[in-house]
């Protein structure tokens, strides 16, 4: 009861802060701009993307549909959304320390571990709310504006066609995966916020870690290859695995198939372990931390 009470209080504080709505506004603005751009000039973009296929294939239907639009948006945004997540998660402890309210909170009869769990839960709820907001804009609005049809995903050397009836559950799974990925960022930022007395530090540190890890990921050098499986950023785009399908002997998509489910689950597992690790470390450190702010 006390835990839920504190979660409620933390959510109340999060959603009473103007900065919380920056993230929601930014997502709506960015997604809206991308949709506007594609609505105005999407056909020429698709023609450019499909030019290597049109000689060999006859492509008909609404290619530039809401499903593809959502895929493009998620691909673009899920790299940048961690900043928006860190804005709140990185502020959870350090922001309270900066304004001096952390010591007021801790003079109240609540366990430190309960407070950390409640604060993490509240920042997780914010993260998921932001993701749902993104889903509404990226998928919901795109479906309304661009309509629905089979989904054609273009890659550098191939194209995957997914039947329209087989798309929605993949998005649901992809958003669940994205939630785990963003909760990992949230947990990292939350953990870093234990060590700072202003929220800029943890937010910048979180973004720096993500940028450095992403660069290490993209550098195709043997020295970094052994590191890559252990970098959580290597697994953050695992949601795309839900859009890799298998085909039968007639080269037709097998409905409900995932090409490499094991890899997707492995990535989700690694991310989940990171969340647990950061949370446990946060609790252990916070329980013994001297509150000097």
């Amino acid at each position, binding site marked *: 009861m*006390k835990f839920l*009470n*504190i979660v*409620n*209080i933390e959510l*109340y*504080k999060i959603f*009473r*802060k*103007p900065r919380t709505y920056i993230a929601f506004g930014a997502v709506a603005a960015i997604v809206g701009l991308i949709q506007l751009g594609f609505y105005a000039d999407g056909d020429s973009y698709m023609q450019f993307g499909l030019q290597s296929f049109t000689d060999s294939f006859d492509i008909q239907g609404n290619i530039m549909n809401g499903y593809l639009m959502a895929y493009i948006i998620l691909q673009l945004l899920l790299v940048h959304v961690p900043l928006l997540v860190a804005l709140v998660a990185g502020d959870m402890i350090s922001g309270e320390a900066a*304004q*001096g*309210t952390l*010591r*007021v*909170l*801790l*003079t*109240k*009869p*609540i*366990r430190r571990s309960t407070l950390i769990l409640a604060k993490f839960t509240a920042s997780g709820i914010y993260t998921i709310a932001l993701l749902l907001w993104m889903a509404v804009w990226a998928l919901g609005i795109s479906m309304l504006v661009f309509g629905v049809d089979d989904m054609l995903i273009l890659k550098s050397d191939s194209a995957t066609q997914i039947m329209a009836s087989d798309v929605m559950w993949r998005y649901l799974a992809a958003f669940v995966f994205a939630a785990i990925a963003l909760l990992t960022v949230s947990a990292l930022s939350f953990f870093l916020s234990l060590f700072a007395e202003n929220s800029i530090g943890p937010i910048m540190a979180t973004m720096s870690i993500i940028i450095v890890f992403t660069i290490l990921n993209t550098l195709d050098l043997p020295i970094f290859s052994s590191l890559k499986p252990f970098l959580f950023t290597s697994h953050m785009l695992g949601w795309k695995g839900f859009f890799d399908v298998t085909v039968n002997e007639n080269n037709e998509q097998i409905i409900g198939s995932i090409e490499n489910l094991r890899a997707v689950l492995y990535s989700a597992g690694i991310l989940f372990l990171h969340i647990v690790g950061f949370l446990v470390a946060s609790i252990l450190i916070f329980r*013994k931390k*001297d*509150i*000097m702010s």
Partner: protein
Amino acid sequence: MLSVNHLSKSFGSFQAVNDLSFEVNQGEVYGFLGQNGAGKSTTIRMILSLIRPTSGNIEIFGKSLYAEREAILQRIGAVVEKPDLYRYLSGYENLSLFAKLSANRISKAEIMDCLALVGLDKRAKDPVRVYSQGMKQRLGIAVALVHNPDFIILDEPTNGLDPQGIADIRNLILMLSRDRGKTILVSSHLLSEIEQVADSMLIINKGKKVVEGKVNELVNPEKLQLEIVSTDNPKALELLSETVWSKSTSRSTAHRISVEINAGEVAALNKYLVDNNIGITSLRSMNSLEAYFLSLTSGNEVS
């Protein structure tokens, strides 16, 4: 009510609190006195379990603080240093939010009563960011009082307040003690504040206990600290060095002489200097407790 035993706290090589022991009895207002940086806030933070002592232990309500932290904190209300609150929330929202962290259910009426007690009921809906320093201080005290604690800890509650604000807080402390029977630990570097509200007090310096006792016993009205300004201070100093007051005479500033003296000897000292052709421009008795405090915290420790 509170028993602090051999409490020490180090930050690296800096010893903030050094083997400090004292007791606060039920129903009393206990003054915790020391200059800035003496270790008052560090001690209070340890009493509230905000920081862990390097050694020593604390018992409150007869229970070990670290074994029964939550049960103890349920019965304590505290303001530590500044009364920091959520600036984007109103006074009422702040109080309501902290009230929810109590194990007791606190009604809206009780929250409004608490705001009225500190004189903020008419500004309850205003955001804290527009509150004056005095209003924030009073709201901080309301946060400490909202769950009706038995033991109240106020760390420098008059810091940054104007004279009226200081008087308001002083009256509130006295009211809480006399009318509601609360036990109060109040820290300050202002001796006059402690003298006016406290029954007992502890003076610490550089993290160590200097003296502890009943305020009326520590303040000896028979002993005065005289500040003398004369027409010839060097000669006056020389003359005094040949008297019984020589050991308690010092130059307090370039133009003043300080003498610790019994009240009955002031006239004799004055006559002695005048008879020796020293004109007395000013003869002023400093606050006895202040003089006492300054003498204690200037290096002389009392066991």
